[in-house]
């Protein structure tokens, strides 16, 4: 049986899917912008509550993971399979660290009584309630994307180790990499909007 793989078509399909993801998160960011316009002071107060350290560390490590996925494709195309697998494993591990940071960050917020439908938020200023509502929805949705991305990259890692992905057939890795980069791009916008707002 002859199997036919069309990497070019698959990549176009992946990009089309990413466009729908861009639209999804654009909608979220427009909601954020509209409420920022309506409650500017409450949003600034909300932003002060978020930890700049957690936000910055997660930004830096996610950028590094994006780099290692891109470098992994380069390594594979240069026929260094071990390096490609190592870089991919590093990216998955960084995704895990990102989620652990997120766990502590959310935990801290919840401990301080800031969580969806918390009495402090419901009875407090409307704008702050909106800010933290958006914070949980957007970072939560982004977190789900991180988990999906980690699963996809892990599958690629196994396929590289089993030599099912190699320098002549790396379409799957390329497409999973595209997804991971998109998740990174979304964080690039989340970081200044939530953590750096003054």
């Amino acid at each position, binding site marked *: 049986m002859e199997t036919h793989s069309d990497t070019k078509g698959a990549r176009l399909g992946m990009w089309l899917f990413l*466009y729908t993801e861009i639209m999804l998160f654009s909608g979220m960011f427009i909601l954020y912008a509209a409420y920022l316009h309506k409650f500017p002071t409450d949003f600034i107060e909300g932003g002060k509550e978020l930890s700049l350290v957690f936000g*910055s560390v997660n930004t830096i490590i996610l950028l590094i993971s994006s780099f290692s996925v891109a470098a992994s494709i380069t390594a594979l195309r240069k026929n260094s399979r071990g390096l490609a697998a190592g870089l991919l494993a590093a990216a998955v591990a960084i995704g895990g660290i990102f989620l652990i940071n997120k766990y502590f960050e959310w935990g801290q917020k919840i401990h301080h009584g800031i969580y969806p439908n918390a009495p402090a938020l419901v009875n407090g200023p409307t704008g702050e309630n909106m800010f933290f509502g958006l914070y949980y929805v957007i970072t939560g949705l982004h977190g789900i994307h991180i988990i999906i991305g980690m699963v996809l990259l892990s599958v690629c890692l196994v396929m590289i180790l089993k030599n099912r992905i190699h320098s002549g057939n790396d379409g799957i890795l390329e497409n999973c990499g595209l997804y991971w980069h998109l998740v*990174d791009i979304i964080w690039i*916008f989340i970081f200044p909007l939530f953590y750096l707002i*003054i």
Partner: protein
Amino acid sequence: MKITNEHPHVISYKKLIGILIALLILTAITISVSMVDLGKFNVWAALLIASTKCTLVVLFFMHLKYENRVIRISFVVTLFCVAILIGFIFWDISFR
């Protein structure tokens, strides 16, 4: 197994590391700019730096610079649609 592969582009490690360093520098810049009160320009500065970082990731990490025309054009069209969406919604919000 038949594979229809257009000779894939290989981006050098050196270039990728250069992009990563640029992204980290831009992150440092966006953090330091947020510590200075520029009024409403803080948001615009943050968005400008984020868009620059996004451009670097899309062009080099996502290989868009070396992609075929269909993908390049469709990406620009998507951004155009997002711009229309944002533009009309803000047109509405600012005249309420």
